[in-house]
């Protein structure tokens, strides 16, 4: 009788241990968890190349700073935001967070990020960083994100196609009228084999360039900052081009995801004009086509009017509001944004460094490739031609972007008229921005 009971007790004890062990480790009582507390977690998004370089950078920092260990957590862009939101909700988000412009508004407004004011200028030196870039990481005048690199909206064109058709390359200062004329000429001269341009009518970044050229913007103080008539004009402009083949038809446009080069009409040689964010020129568009792609300033309203482009931070580094090692995190952010090693390692992978210190490091080096020179020259041109940057995007800007895409498709597929589309978009977007 004693033996079975003994075995039972043994099993009970074993089971109890089995159940308790994971619970105990969750309570941070074991040594492995304690070690994790000593390190600074840094999360980043991007393609494998970008993540590889940033991971390498985290390693470099760890090896040169014996008291801090940077734990790098790289995630592919498609999954990054879901993961970050979940980590935030679970109170387990990384200390230093790589974040984009729409989310800095979303997360910052919700108190998930901490203001960096107390680290400026002693720990984080923001002087070398362009003022226009800095303000895009500010919420109500306080710095919440440090820009790491610059990304600028440019108009890309297929040099090979234009040369074949005997068409002139677009100039730096060109108008939307000239853009439309060129797009229609491409269609006609190619014997209707290729369309003129992409259809960016549902892309908030493109609409923003157009609006800024008219002295307006997408948002101001958390609400829409343009007249209904401007949006009508925008939809009408693209509807006219759609009718003549100056832009791709609705069903081809629906296959392309804005900013996603493999599905884009420029790479698929369906059109010869399409916008490109500068960091995507080399690794994105140009690497996927044997045609030569060049970039210039986006069109303006009138010849001597304002150009809508502006240098935007490709992404920011922010500090988790709950970080227990915020001081170490801030020091790492400064090293990442301004440091020489960082500039040398990252080069132009996300665009030119936001910090002038970083750009100097690259310019002094004599190993610049042709496409790197192309991007640096364009950035220089864009900086000269750009006006004051927009405020940080409101929290609901991602939802508004979805709305614009949907409206543009409804219009392009002729499900609703432009007038109805504009009315519906403006009403729905206002409601979304109000948080209703």
């Amino acid at each position, binding site marked *: 009788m004693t033996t079975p009971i003994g075995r039972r007790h043994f099993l009970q004890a074993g089971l109890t241990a089995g159940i308790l062990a994971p619970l105990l480790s969750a309570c941070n009582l074991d040594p492995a968890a304690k070690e994790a507390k000593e390190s600074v977690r840094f999360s980043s998004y991007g393609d494998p190349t970008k993540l590889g370089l940033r991971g390498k950078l985290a390693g470099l920092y760890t090896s040169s700073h014996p008291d801090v260990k940077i734990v790098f957590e790289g995630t592919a862009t498609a999954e990054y*935001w879901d993961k970050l939101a979940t980590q935030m909700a679970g109170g387990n988000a990384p200390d230093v967070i790589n974040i984009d412009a729409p989310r800095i508004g979303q997360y910052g407004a919700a108190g998930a990020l901490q203001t960096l004011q107390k680290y400026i200028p002693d720990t984080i030196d923001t002087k070398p960083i362009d003022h226009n870039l800095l303000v895009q990481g500010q919420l109500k005048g306080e710095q919440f994100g440090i820009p790491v690199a610059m990304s600028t909206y440019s108009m890309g064109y297929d040099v090979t196609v234009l040369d074949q058709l005997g068409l002139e390359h677009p100039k730096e200062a060109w108008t939307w009228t000239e853009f439309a004329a060129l797009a229609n000429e491409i269609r006609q001269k190619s014997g209707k084999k290729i369309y003129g341009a992409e259809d960016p009518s549902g892309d908030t970044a493109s609409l923003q360039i157009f609006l800024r050229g008219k002295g307006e913007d997408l948002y101001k103080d958390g609400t829409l900052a343009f007249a209904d008539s401007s949006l009508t004009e925008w939809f009408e402009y693209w509807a006219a081009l759609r009718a003549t083949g100056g832009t791709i038809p609705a069903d081809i446009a629906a296959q392309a995801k804005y900013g996603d080069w493999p599905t884009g009409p420029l790479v698929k040689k369906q059109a010869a004009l399409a916008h490109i964010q500068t960091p995507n020129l080399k690794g994105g568009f140009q690497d996927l086509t044997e045609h030569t792609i060049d970039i210039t300033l986006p069109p303006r309203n009138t010849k001597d009017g304002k150009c809508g482009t502006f240098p935007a931070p490709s992404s920011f580094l922010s500090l988790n509001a709950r970080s227990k090692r915020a001081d170490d995190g801030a020091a790492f952010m400064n090293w990442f944004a301004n440091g020489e090693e960082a500039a040398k390692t990252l080069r132009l992978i996300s665009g030119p460094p936001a910090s002038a210190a970083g750009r100097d490091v690259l310019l002094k080096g004599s190993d610049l490739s042709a496409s790197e020179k192309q991007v640096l020259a364009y950035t220089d041109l864009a900086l000269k031609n750009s006006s004051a940057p927009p405020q940080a995007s409101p929290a609901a800007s991602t939802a508004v972007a979805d709305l614009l895409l949907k409206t543009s498709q409804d219009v392009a597929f002729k499900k609703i008229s432009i007038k109805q589309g504009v009315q519906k978009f403006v009403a729905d977007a206002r409601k979304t921005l109000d948080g209703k």
Partner: protein
Amino acid sequence: MSTSTEISAPAGREPTADGPDRSTPATRPKPGSRRDRVAYLFLAPWFVGLLLLTAGPLLGSLYLSFTKFNLLQPPAWTGFGNYLKMFTDDPRYLQSLKVTFIYVVLTVPLQLGFALAVAVMLNRPLRGMAWYRSIYYIPSLLGGSVAIAVIWGQLFDDDGVLNSFLAFFGVAGRSWISSPDTALYTLVLLNIWQFGSPMVIFLAGLKQIPQELYDAASVDGASSWRRFRSVTVPLLTPIIFFNVVLQIIQAFQAFTPAYVVSGGSGGPSDSTLFYTLYLYQQGFTNLNMGYASAMAWVLLLIIATFTLINFGLARRWVYYEDR
């Protein structure tokens, strides 16, 4: 309710002559005995899992459905606000309901009809039949994967396989997958193509039908269609019922194909905005977790209602041999 009384009735009966050795309450260990406790101990990991990983989050999401919760700040109670908004102030929600209902209504009967037809064909004593069955099952193994959704996109794309085929006959195709009029139907086709699992279940059901019934019907001069209608279908009704219930539940929860084919947008023009896809957008893109939770609970209610209706209707057409 009737089932539970049927089951509990014999337990209360006195032991009968034909069941004297059935364990009576007297010979069974008392509840709460040491043996029971040990049993519960062994079940404990499962209970912990159920409570922490299933019941907990379930109740948590029920609570969240009555709040405004953006994952970053503590949830704020809004009562039935989310539920009200869904049906009164959210056209995209109604669109997602419409898309999902169309999908369910089309995909379930078509897929099951197809699965049954293939199962009947594969239920013949031919050489190499095991191979055929395996081959026909393959689409279902691959079906849920992202890769297939990508290939599906290519198939029905502007310059896709279907259009090349149509062009051969001089028919000018269109981009099926990126036109709001046809995009949803390409996804319906994709689901029909994944007929494997209902097919296997049908096949198992077909094997259960006694050959004598067919033989007897043949002797009476029944044609093969008549045999199918009067022997196969009635005896297969429990299986058909099972498949209908399961496929309706699955169809309501469809997510992957729409997510991949539309790049997560539910486009073009919200024509593939499935319920789950919109739920995901609300939860993770717009960080409206409270709203997303409310949507999840409404979906649960919808699926539960459909299942109840199915069970209610089943009495009229499902035939159980042993009753």
